[in-house]
């Protein structure tokens, strides 16, 4: 047990962070049918913003400020890069996302000079605690709980409110959704608000553990989170969360078993196997196209 526990803890913690990021992917995908490649970079920007904000102001101001700024950035990205392309071919929107990711990365690179910035220590949540004989920081324990609470809240929001139904309608057919009176732009903005907000929260938890922020640091967790979303069946929020935890925990155990060379490869391998068995992910709706 004492051998396994630390790996399990770190797996759950990383998994929770993946989960928070992957919700952003899955929601945007659910509605725009777009892999928002810039999402991982928005996550990184949130980290950098925190670096700068925490240098000049106390935490109780900087933390909410960073979340708000990240949300603004997320919505801005949508308005600039995706909204003008509503009627364009899907591939163009995808490219726009990749371009946006490039732009964010390169701008951060330019501003930071490509060097690692030290992430501020957030009091309380980065304190060390002792769980079952292993030392770990409090954030490790907080992450999964926070994730699950946020997700339950989100699922309720989407299931029980009109905006949830509007999102599902818009995801297939913008025009017809509009013909029902849905304000598609607001719905999309809402999606980005939620996604970016969660990415900002995720970034705080993530960087508290990992100390430094570089312009490309978001790329890998971004990709993993996306894989988590696909894994769970893209478009499904619970799927994304479960996918995130599975990937986080598997990764942690693989490293524990010293197959580190293949820890990333394993993630992707698992993905391919799952998709081979269930082509739309664990919880993805299988689309029957009637002919």
């Amino acid at each position: 047990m004492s051998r396994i526990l630390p790996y399990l803890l770190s797996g759950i913690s990383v998994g929770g962070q993946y989960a928070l990021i992957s919700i952003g992917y899955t929601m945007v995908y659910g509605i725009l049918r777009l892999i928002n490649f810039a999402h991982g970079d928005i996550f990184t920007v949130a980290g950098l913003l925190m670096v700068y904000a925490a240098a000049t102001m106390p935490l109780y101001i900087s933390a909410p400020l960073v979340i708000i700024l990240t949300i603004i950035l997320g919505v801005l990205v949508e308005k600039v890069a995706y909204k003008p392309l509503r009627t364009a071919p899907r591939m163009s929107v995808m490219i726009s996302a990749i371009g946006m990711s490039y732009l964010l990365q390169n701008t951060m690179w330019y501003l930071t000079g490509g060097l690692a910035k030290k992430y501020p220590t957030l009091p309380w949540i980065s304190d060390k605690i002792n769980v079952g004989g292993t030392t770990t920081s409090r954030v490790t324990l907080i992450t999964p709980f926070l994730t699950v609470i946020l997700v339950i809240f989100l699922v309720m929001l989407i299931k029980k409110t009109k905006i949830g139904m509007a999102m599902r309608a818009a995801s297939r057919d913008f025009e017809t959704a509009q013909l029902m009176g849905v304000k598609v732009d607001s719905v999309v903005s809402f999606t980005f608000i939620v996604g970016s907000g969660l990415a900002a929260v995720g970034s705080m938890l993530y960087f508290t553990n990992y100390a430094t922020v570089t312009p490309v640091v978001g790329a890998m967790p971004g990709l993993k989170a996306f894989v988590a979303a696909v894994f769970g069946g893209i478009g499904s929020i619970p799927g994304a969360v479960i996918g995130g935890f599975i990937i986080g925990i598997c990764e942690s155990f693989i490293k524990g078993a010293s197959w580190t060379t293949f820890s990333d490869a394993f993630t992707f391998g698992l993905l391919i196997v799952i998709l081979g068995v269930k082509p739309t992910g664990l919880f993805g709706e299988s689309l029957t196209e009637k002919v």
Partner: protein
Amino acid sequence: MKKNNQRQGLITAGIVIVLLAVLVLLDNAAWVPPMLLTVLRKGVIYALVAVSMNLLNGFTGLFSLGQAGFMLLGAYSYAVLTIPVENQTAIYQQFKNGGLHFSITESLTNVMGEFGTLIGVIICLIIAGAVAALFAYLIGLPVLRLKSDYLAIATLGFAEILRALVQFEKLGPVTNGSNLLYGFTSFSNFQIGTLHLGTVMPFLFSGACIWIVVLLINSTYGRAFKAIRDDEVAAEAMGINLAKHKRMSFVISSFFAGISGGLLAMYQASVQAVTFKSAMTYEILLIVVIGGIGSITGSILASFLFVGCSEWWLRFLDNTTVVSLNGKIASVIVICVAIVGVVALIFWRNRKKAFADKRNTIFLTLIVGAVLLAGQIKFAISSSLQLPLLRSGFRMVIFSIVIMIMVLFFSKGIMGDRELPDLLQKRRNAKAAKASKGGDAQ
């Protein structure tokens, strides 16, 4: 009709010969900035991989992001097979007795001399393609059943797996683990006496491959691919075997990606797995989309533009001080022609639209074109300037802004889904039609 075809063939052949001659000239003239050669070489290699990706994404409608992985396979296959035996101990220093202890190009050179090198390179490039194709075939069985984005992410993942595999220590004696492979036959080896052929060769190799892809696309199989792209259900109902044709397209595309990987290895003169990341695939995808999904000439044009921008024309943005006159004029001329060309192309493409529709496009094109031109002119007349904002990294910021502008304002790419000859042809046809209509009216 027949005569027309013959004439067209002759014209094409003429263009090709002139192009090759110009390339040889460029390669050997002292006044040519080496950066131009870099752009030409890398551009034509990227053109091949972009075309191969276009075959899959643009013509068959299979959204795959595995290109970097197949290039990696090609590059490694090529490199491993061509490293001269004597260099192998030094290169595989971490893996004692590493290396294959033979080199195809070397053996053939020993037998046939210079000509043997060429044959060896061709053989190894084909093997490079074949290895990539083999892997594509294997992975194609499970993943090609997946729909759009699921396929994309599965292939992206597969490429990452390949990268990890190549770096696997147990394979070190062949792949040299995570270390560089170098010292193999590269473009600089192509030389007759003092005549450099380092730029002509990639054009020949890539050109031949692209030509084959074009032939394929215009054949009955190519048409079947397009049918699958447009409507799978209808395609299947009309007797096109989806699994077979999708796999065919995937394998062929990977084959050429593998070859372009081999060419890239030759161009870089070294290979390392870390460079074949998903970012590389994204770059290629950018090229494909900027050029126009479903347009071969678009992909080719965009490759040169992309490589030119990222490697050369924008480089001055990275330096606080601007370089001195050497090669400057040439670069300015090239980029001015490119800018004016693209602006003209855009205008021409939009010529039919009402002014209200194209107003934004026109203004933006003009502004961007003017800014770029002004930048070039300033660059040309300044001897050594300290400019604000310019420092390392600025180039990439501007570059990504340029990409965003391209994507937002020309969401169908430079060429849409048309080809350059089509555009010219259409114009001629339109003229002819007009003339004949005029005749009818009288």
